[in-house]
């Protein structure tokens, strides 16, 4: 579980996060949603320590991350997997070596064991036959999936995904959501997903934090969201006629 209290962060005089508090639960898909520029990425980066928040406290499983020294943070980070919005694959390594890198660094397994594990996760993200390609030779969606494979290869306790399915087709997108959801349940991970994909929200949203202009505007789960009266949330989520229709249908279903 990751709790954070009163997180604020500004760049220059621009306040990006304004007093955000929430708890991310283990074994659940915790979603951070919000329009582009609302501070989702900045919040995730504050949680893992890539940005220092100006104010507030972050607590991992009861231990204050804010007060940890560098060495303790390093130890904790070995249990964190993170998918970056831009994938952040190592340019100089092949797909296979990218995914294998955490294993090389942190395990003493034999090459065959490691390769077996690499192929296993690559298969899970539906990416076979690209092992020897370089990041510059694969598509954006494929990079995303390699990024996910690299993030989960060590079975982290905490998984951060910044827009795991942006740039993916609906089918692959569903598959990735399902994969993240399954491993979250299987390994009781604390998974935090930034998204503005409504499909993901409705499919896997166990615990949703809606950010608006850097402020916590609403929280709840995928059921609550259907019945929510919050004006901003409804405008954001059910932006199109089509989605509004879907909401009405879902409401009727749930009421029955």
């Amino acid at each position, binding site marked *: 579980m990751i709790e954070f209290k009163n997180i604020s962060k500004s760049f220059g005089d621009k306040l990006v996060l304004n007093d955000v508090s929430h708890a991310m639960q283990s074994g659940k898909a915790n979603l951070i949603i919000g329009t582009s520029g609302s501070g989702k990425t900045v919040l995730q980066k504050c949680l893992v320590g*890539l940005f220092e928040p100006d104010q507030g406290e972050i607590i991992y499983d009861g231990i204050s991350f804010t007060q940890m020294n560098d060495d303790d943070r390093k130890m904790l*980070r*070995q249990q964190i997997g993170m998918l970056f919005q831009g994938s*952040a694959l190592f*340019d100089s390594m092949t797909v296979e070596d990218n995914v294998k890198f955490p294993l*090389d660094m942190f395990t003493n397994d034999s090459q065959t064991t490691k390769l077996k594990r690499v192929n296993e996760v690559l298969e899970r993200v539906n990416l076979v036959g690209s092992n020897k390609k370089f990041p510059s030779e694969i598509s954006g969606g494929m990079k995303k999936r390699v990024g996910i494979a690299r993030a989960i290869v060590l079975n982290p306790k905490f998984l951060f995904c910044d827009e795991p399915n942006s740039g993916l087709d609906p089918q692959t997108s569903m598959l990735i959501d399902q994969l993240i959801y399954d491993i979250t349940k299987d390994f009781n991970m604390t998974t935090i997903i930034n998204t503005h994909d409504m499909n993901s929200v409705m499919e896997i949203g166990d615990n949703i934090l809606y950010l608006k202009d850097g402020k916590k505007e609403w929280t709840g789960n995928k059921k609550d969201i259907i019945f929510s009266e919050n004006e901003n949330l409804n405008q954001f989520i059910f932006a199109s006629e089509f989605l509004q229709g879907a909401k009405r249908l879902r409401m009727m279903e749930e009421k029955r």
Partner: protein
Amino acid sequence: MTFFTHLGRYILMLKGMFSKPENPKLYWKEFMHQCAEIGIGSIGIVSIISVFMGAVSAVQTAYQIVNPFISKTIISQIVRDTVILEFAPTLICIVLAGVVGSKIASELGNMRVSEQIDALEIMGINTKTYLVLPKIAAAIVTVPMLTVLAMLLGILGGRLTVSLSGILSTDSYDRGLRELFVPYNVFFALIKAYTFAFIISSIPAYFGYYVKGGSLEIGRSSTTSVVVSCIVILFADYILAALLL
């Protein structure tokens, strides 16, 4: 940012490099890779420059010595001393600041901008130790070797031109090389090479590691790092000469 903030952050970066590697084998692999990149990768350019450097200084010395009372073997002495004292360590390192320095700065800058450094940090890897230290260590190991190579090739280049253009026979050239030879000069040149190796790797690493922004800034920081490295080399050259000669 002021000079002192840069200096402070530079020193902190150097201090941060010394931490226990998570997996020594991978660090060793990275070090070897950098030795190949920096050392073997620069052999070509260093060879070409040294040969011509030696050749030109031989021809020019010969051109300036018109006095028949001076023995012509002085040509090889002058070539030897300028190549060993100044050309091989300083000139070669300035060239390497361009070749190696810009490579280091842009490699790290690209990793920073595309969040690869963040990705490593998140895995729990000290990126200063994993990315910066092997580069500096590799430069310190290989650049002095390149300097020695440059000395040999420079002197050889001089020998080649004097004999080809008939200024001096190779025998007299070789005799001149052995006259009034001061071994301390080689030692001094190596001290310079080690110092410069540290400069041309750590300064670009600093500028690359702390890049902010996009690809435009990568180019800019790599240019800045080369300029700063060159100035610091010349400055250090002067200090070392004043201290050690």
